[in-house]
């Protein structure tokens, strides 16, 4: 592609401390093309975006904008040079308290050499020009806070376009939009493309990617793992490159004895986990470990939290042990024996001011208490048992959580839910931020104790699923699109499911 590229990156590296995030990235962006950047969590996407938009500076490597070197010292400098970024958080891109017109010309109001006074008519005229150029059909006098998310996103993009950029970076712009809203956004992106802007589009949503991509670049572990430019685009290949490992090899290495469920424990029939989502059904049995996989943002966490009573399904019914199951909150779920090891332990798992045994006993304090008084002796004994079982490295059960490593903190949050018998144990990304050894400890413990309950894991990383589960379900667009027994997995079909190709036809049972 070299010749008509307006933006070139070569040999870009960046490390935070000992942590190498980018290891020599090379990337070209061409005028009038949408280049989709795919990458798993931690692949280095956001670092790359931050370097391009002037938030961070690269350690090594070069960026060229047109034929001039480009090394912005600040986001404002990048913007002036012609590289603008629309961030994932929509409200970072607009000022809620102002009307649409002021938002559209906000950056001009700040520029040097502007007059002291604010001329509303002139602002309105300039804003009208910007809006017309972008085909933005929004009332310029409306307050931004009163607009729907999609319109806010449009305003943010139109505002970015007011700089006449050569390069526009869109970081997961559809992550909080409905599909109708997204379609309006795509129409806008089509107009930008027609105007010759080079667009770098970062997303996990396969439907977005299929709709927009001219080229796909997969990033893995800080390096480009694949470029796909030949039409028709090889979406599965891109997903495979992004997930990276040679899965077939892994299969052999981590193969497990796939077990079948003994007796049915939990079933959901035709539940819809979000408005507009297609219904999904699943059945889980005692003794089996089932992994749900899929790209980021396909509704895995939503499903996990729905099963745990944090959200209620829009439609459909669930049964547990043959009885209807409709939890109104987490306490209901826990009462029925449905436990959730939630994703992101820092925000939903650990209580930082509590020590290990206090953290472990948290959901089951009533069971550790008599007449409301907590029995520390029992709590501590239980915690000591778990510390031994899960090989948690600490001085004693009275250590503060903050003194533990990430892996050991994660073990504590998992152990919390293992202290009591459960019917359905759900774990949402239990291996996030956990080293290999801790991951193996946790997985082994999960499989070992799986006998009396159904275990449901939500995992973005495919090889984690292959390593721990008896059965693998694949989610895409808020529903389950495929099912695979972890014995002789057809990797092509699995990747195709992840990439969302079959979601029109394939349904899980």
């Amino acid at each position: 592609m070299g010749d008509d590229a307006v933006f070139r990156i070569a040999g870009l590296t960046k490390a935070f401390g000992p942590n190498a995030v980018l290891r020599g990235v090379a990337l070209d962006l061409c005028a009038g093309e949408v280049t989709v950047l795919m990458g798993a969590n931690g692949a280095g996407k956001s670092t790359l975006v931050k370097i391009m938009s002037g938030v961070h500076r690269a350690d090594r490597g070069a960026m060229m904008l047109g034929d001039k070197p480009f090394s912005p010292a600040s986001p404002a400098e990048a913007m002036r040079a012609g590289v603008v970024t629309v961030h994932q958080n929509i409200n970072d891109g607009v000022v809620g308290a102002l009307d649409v017109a002021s938002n559209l010309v906000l950056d001009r109001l700040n520029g040097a050499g502007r007059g002291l006074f604010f001329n509303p008519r002139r602002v309105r005229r300039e804003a009208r020009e910007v809006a017309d150029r972008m085909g933005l059909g929004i009332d310029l006098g409306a307050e931004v806070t009163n607009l729907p998310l999609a319109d806010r996103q449009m305003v943010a993009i139109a505002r970015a376009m007011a700089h006449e950029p050569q390069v526009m970076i869109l970081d997961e712009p559809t992550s909080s939009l409905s599909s109708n809203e997204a379609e309006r956004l795509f129409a806008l992106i089509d107009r930008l493309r027609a105007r010759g802007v080079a667009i770098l589009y970062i997303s996990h949503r396969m439907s977005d990617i299929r709709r927009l991509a001219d080229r796909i670049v997969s990033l893995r572990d800080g390096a480009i793992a694949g470029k796909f430019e030949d039409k028709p685009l090889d979406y599965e290949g891109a997903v495979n490159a992004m997930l990276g490992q040679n899965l077939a090899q892994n299969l052999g290495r981590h193969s497990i004895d796939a077990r079948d469920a003994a007796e049915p424990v939990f079933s959901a029939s035709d539940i819809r986990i979000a408005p507009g989502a297609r219904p999904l059904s699943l059945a889980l049995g005692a003794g089996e470990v089932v992994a749900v996989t899929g790209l980021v943002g396909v509704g895995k966490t939503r499903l996990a939290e729905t099963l745990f009573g944090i959200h209620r399904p829009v439609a459909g019914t669930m049964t547990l042990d043959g009885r209807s199951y409709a939890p109104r909150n987490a306490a209901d779920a826990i009462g029925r024996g449905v436990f959730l090891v939630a994703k992101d332990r820092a925000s939903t798992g650990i209580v930082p001011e509590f020590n290990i045994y206090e953290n472990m006993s948290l959901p089951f304090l009533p069971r550790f208490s008599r007449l409301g008084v907590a029995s520390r002796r029992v709590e501590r004994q239980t915690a000591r048992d778990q510390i031994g079982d899960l090989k948690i490295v600490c001085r004693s059960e009275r250590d503060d959580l903050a003194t533990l490593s990430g892996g050991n903190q994660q073990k504590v949050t998992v152990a919390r839910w293992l202290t009591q018998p459960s019917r359905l144990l759900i774990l949402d990304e239990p291996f996030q931020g956990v080293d290999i050894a801790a991951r193996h400890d946790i997985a082994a413990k999960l499989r070992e104790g799986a006998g009396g309950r159904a275990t449901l894991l939500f995992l973005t990383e495919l090889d984690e699923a292959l390593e721990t589960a008896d059965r693998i379900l694949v989610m895409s667009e808020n529903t389950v699109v495929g099912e695979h027994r972890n014995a002789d997995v057809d990797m092509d079909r699995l990747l195709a499911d992840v990439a969302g190709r079959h979601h029109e036809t394939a349904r899980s049972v």
Partner: protein
Amino acid sequence: MDSRMAEKSSVEAPRPSPRLSAREVAIRYGFLTLLFGLIVFFSLATRGFTSPQAAVFILQSVSITGILALGVTATLVVGGFDLSIGSIATSSMMAAAYVMVVLEQNALVAVLVCLAIGALVGLINGLIICYMRVPDLLATLGMMFLLIGLQRIPTEGRSIATGMTMPDGSTAEGTFSPAFLALGRHRFDLVIDNLVPASVVVLIVLAIVIWFFLEYTRFGRMMYAVGSNERAAEFAGAPVRAYRIWAYVISGVFAAIGGILLAARLGRGDIASGNNLLLDAVAAALIGFAVLGAAKPNAFGTAIGALFVGVLLQGLTMMNVPYYTQDFVKGAVLVIALIFTFALLGRRAR
């Protein structure tokens, strides 16, 4: 994060550890040492500081603010704040006076009315904060203003005392019942006759009750969990809103008890905003963060914090230090305690 975090010393019996560094010792025992030093200093510098009566008096002087501080500790534990405690206390004082002097009811009715007012105001605070999503500081600030005004309405801004003239021109004939006044004035014998005032007994009992509640019951533990990580508590099945509402009810009831003791001590219902009570109580609770290096709201620390302020003010007054210097010293102690808590302990501010 390092090993100094390992020794979390709330109010559990401190476990001797061979690895306490000088810094850890300073953090853990610094404030208690300072308190002891102050007592020694005042004992040497003034006459009559070291006597059972003086010691009991210090407790008496902090009993009302101490009780309010224990209440506000409960709201701090769930990550909230209650600015209305001062005005709840003065409203409770006015209500007690109104019930006895104007409505001519007995002491029991007065006490029950006050407690009901405290619980009701706390409940309303909690509901506004949890269900209307008004930030705690703003909700309780509004409640503070509301109560300052409300307590004046029944008497059209007059203070309440026996024989007062009512807005309609009649005279209020009721009196403060002796049983009620005893709450502020009765003294129990302890070694020496007539040594310990009832208000000190109330303070000590409430301190023990709230300390036990927060440290040893599952409800207290859950309240700490709610304050430390609300989402984690929710995911552990805790009814987060209920715990937060209960915290405000506790705070309201404690403030009402403070108001009852205030009324019993003054023997009349004085129009007052209660802002000084609020500030002193909050200061005591915040100083409590630094006690034993807890770095979190805790009942034992709050009690020590209140005692600290009491010792300081008693000593300074005995040395004839003017009142404005005392405010300065109080503020300085608070600032030092906060620095102690947040800088030395290296923990994130709440």
